[in-house]
Each structure stands twice: as C-alpha cells, then as structure tokens.
C-alpha cells in the first residue's frame, strides 16, 4: 500500500494534477457561487412578491408560492436532468457547466426565497407602519428599514445553505461536468490510488467549505450581538 503510494507520488504531485484539480475546484465553486448568487437575488424577488398586497400581483403571488413549494420538494438531481433536457431543446449550445449553474439557481431560488421571507417577516409590522406614516414609499421602507433589519436573520442560514450546497453540486457530475467529485474519479481511472484521487478531493472540499462555514458562524455571532448594524 505504502509502496504503491510512494511509487505514484512523483506522477501525482505534479503541476498537471494541480491544474486539473484546480480547474475542477473552480467549476464546483463557480456553480455554487453563480447559482446561489443568482438564486439569492431571484429568491428575494419571490419573497417580495409573496409579501406584496396589491391586487394585480395576486397571480404572481400564487405562481411564486407554487414555484417555491415545488422546487423545494424536487431532488436536485431531478432538477439537473429537467434543465438538461429543456436546455437542449431551446439552447443546444449552452455548456454543461452553464446547465448545472441554471439548475443550482433554480433550486437555490426556492430555498433562499424561504430564508429571505423568514428574515423579512422577522421585522415587526410596527417598523413598516413607522415608515408608512412618515410618508416613505413601499420601496423606501423596504430598502431603508426592512431589509437592513433582516440581514441578521437572513445571512446565517443563507451562508449555511450555500456551504451545504457545495456538496450537492457533486451531482452535476452525472451530467458530465468535471467538477471536484468527478475529477477524483477521473484521477483513479488514470491509474492513481483512490487514496490520492479521493483524498485530494476530500481535502479540497474541506478547504472550500471550512472557511465559508467559519464565516457563517462569525456572521451569526456578530449579527446576534447587535440588533442594529
């Protein structure tokens, strides 16, 4: 065992392997960041739509609620496959990574919109009335009063969701996206010991998640101390 590892070491610890793993790592990171970033923005839009009261937005409220309820219940792998087939019908030139990023966005939108909604709801109704009676518009009261007070409730679970979703992006390997998990398998197929192939992948997943997790924990304690900043 040790002998094999020693023998493979010179071939494994090379610039080539590092570049290969680096590229895979960047794909995992890209899917997560783009998907969760876009999902956060879209999720916020859905959350705002669902809070709205205007009569003409009633159909949008129903659609937003249906979307969130549906996409939180579909396994991520199924979303990936759905996106793959729909994209192939409409935009056959889109890369696999692009398809995966869209799938992550669809799933993240549903989850993050619930997180944003809980955050917005944590702000007492009286704060909105306080803004109302001063003549602030709905948009002003949202950006200046409600949202700033929601961050402390939104950010910790949103960051935790993103950290968790890093792992789920491994499912994109089923589509053929050479992300981190897939790259481990490829290294093993190239003849390296699984200890090297998957060991490297394990370490890289950890290096990706751990700082983000620490940041989420830091945010949580920092935001918990003071209500205002």
């Amino acid at each position, binding site marked *: 065992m040790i002998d094999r590892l020693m023998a493979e070491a010179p071939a494994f610890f090379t610039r080539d392997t590092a570049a290969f793993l680096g590229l895979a790592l960047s794909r995992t990171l890209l899917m997560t960041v783009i998907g969760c970033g876009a999902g956060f923005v879209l999720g916020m839009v859905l959350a705002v739509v669902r809070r709205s009261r205007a009569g003409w937005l009633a159909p949008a409220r129903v659609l937003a609620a249906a979307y969130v309820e549906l996409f939180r219940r579909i396994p991520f792998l199924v979303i990936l496959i759905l996106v793959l087939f729909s994209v192939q019908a409409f935009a056959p030139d889109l890369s696999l990574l692009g398809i995966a990023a869209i799938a992550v966005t669809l799933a993240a939108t549903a989850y993050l919109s619930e997180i944003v909604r809980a955050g917005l709801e944590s702000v007492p109704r*009286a*704060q909105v*009335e*306080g*803004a*109302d*009676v*001063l*003549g*602030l518009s709905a948009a*002003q009261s949202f950006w*200046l*009063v409600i949202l*700033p*007070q929601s961050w402390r409730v939104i950010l910790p679970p949103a960051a935790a969701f993103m950290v968790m979703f890093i792992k789920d992006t491994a499912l994109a390997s089923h589509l053929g996206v050479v992300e981190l998990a897939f790259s481990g398998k490829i290294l093993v197929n190239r003849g390296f010991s699984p200890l090297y192939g998957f060991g490297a992948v394990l370490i890289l997943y950890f290096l990706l998640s751990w700082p983000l997790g620490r940041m989420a924990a830091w945010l949580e304690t920092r935001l918990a101390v*003071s*209500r*205002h*900043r």
Partner: protein
Amino acid sequence: MPFLDIVDLSAGYGGAPILNGVNLSVGKGEVISLIGPSGSGKSTLLRVLIGLTAPSSGQVSIDGTPVDYASKASVRALRRRMSIVFQQFNLFQNMTALANICLAPVKTLGVAPAAAEARGRELLASVGLADKADSYPDQLSGGQQQRVAIARALAMQPEILLLDEITSALDPERVGEVLDTVRALAATGISMLLVSHEMSFVREISTRVVMMDAGRVVESGPPAQIFTAPQEARTKAFIGAIIRH
C-alpha cells in the same frame, strides 16, 4: 372652520365595526384628549386618521380639504400635515437617533441632508437629548426613545400631531420626562389629538376632553366639565372608576 374635521367616521377590522360614526373637530392650536375604556376605538380612530386603517364610511377633512384615504397621493399629502407617535415608539432599529429623525425629511420632503441634520440636532436638543444623536434605539431608555420618536414626528413639521398612549409603555419614573416634552410642545401652538391615561395630565393640558365608548363620541367638553360634572352616565362611570383607583 375647524382645522381637522371628522364627520360620521366609521371603520372596522375585517367587517367587525369598531368605529360607529365618530364626529369630532379639532381647531388650530387645540389640544384634544381622547379618553374612554380600553377597546373603545381610540387607537383605531388615530390609525384611521393617519391612513393606517381604512375607513368604511364618513368624511375627514384637513384645513377644508377632504382626505381621500383610497388615494395614495391624498394620504401622502395628509402625512405632510399630520404626524403620529405610537405607544411603542416604532423607531427604526437600524438607525441612530439622528438618522431616524432625518430620514423622512430627506427622503420625502426633499430637504438637503445637511439642513435636515442641523434641524435634527435642534430637535434632539429640544427634547433634551442633544448628546444622544449617535445612539441606536436599543441603547436608549424607553423614555429617551419616545422623545426621539416625538422629535422624528416633529421633523416633518406637522400642523397636527396624534399621540397614542405615548407614556403607557414606559417605566413610571420615565413618564414625567415625556409629559414635559408634550407640555412644551402644546405651548408652541401645534394642534394635538392625544390618547392618554394620565388623567391629571389630560386635565392640565387639554383645551377639550372627548369621551369615547363603543366606537362613538359619548361626550365632549372642557376638562373641568368632563372631570367634575360629566353629563353622560358612561362618562360618570368611567371618571368615577378612574378616580377611585
């Protein structure tokens, strides 16, 4: 002509009637206190007046102009003349005292930030909190928060101020400082419509006292009359119950 005129105003929450035809007028510079048992609709009346709860019927006019509560523009215009202070202060928790005061003048009246800040500091000084400009609400006592809330309402330069039990959520030793602020305010000639359970204060400050019960005005008159010679049985019972306490 009265400055604020309320005619046959009714309202309710989801169908249940709470206000049943309120008639009341407030003249320029008048200080009117609403008294009455809990649940009689005093807060609801103030909420309807400021446009937080929709009226079901009736008419409100300010300085002769009827208010259309279904129209955003009309309500916005109203809120430039009328401000409200709530029992729970409702200060924006994410802003300093000064920022709370400057926000609306800058964002809704278009006052230049520097001018708003100078005026904000003046207002803070006038409520005795010149040194608290940079404090956040959760760093202030209830009485201090309520004085900031009053300053915030005044920053809109309202012609009439609504005050809903603004001392009810305060520790007893903090009530005096807020009442002093209101007393000083009354002397400036601003019109006020206030709800209070501080009866000696009501008696001292009011030009007229209005007794409400079951969503109606039961009786109104000068404080001396309402407190010492009430005409209506319900007013007698209410005043009697308070004085026995």
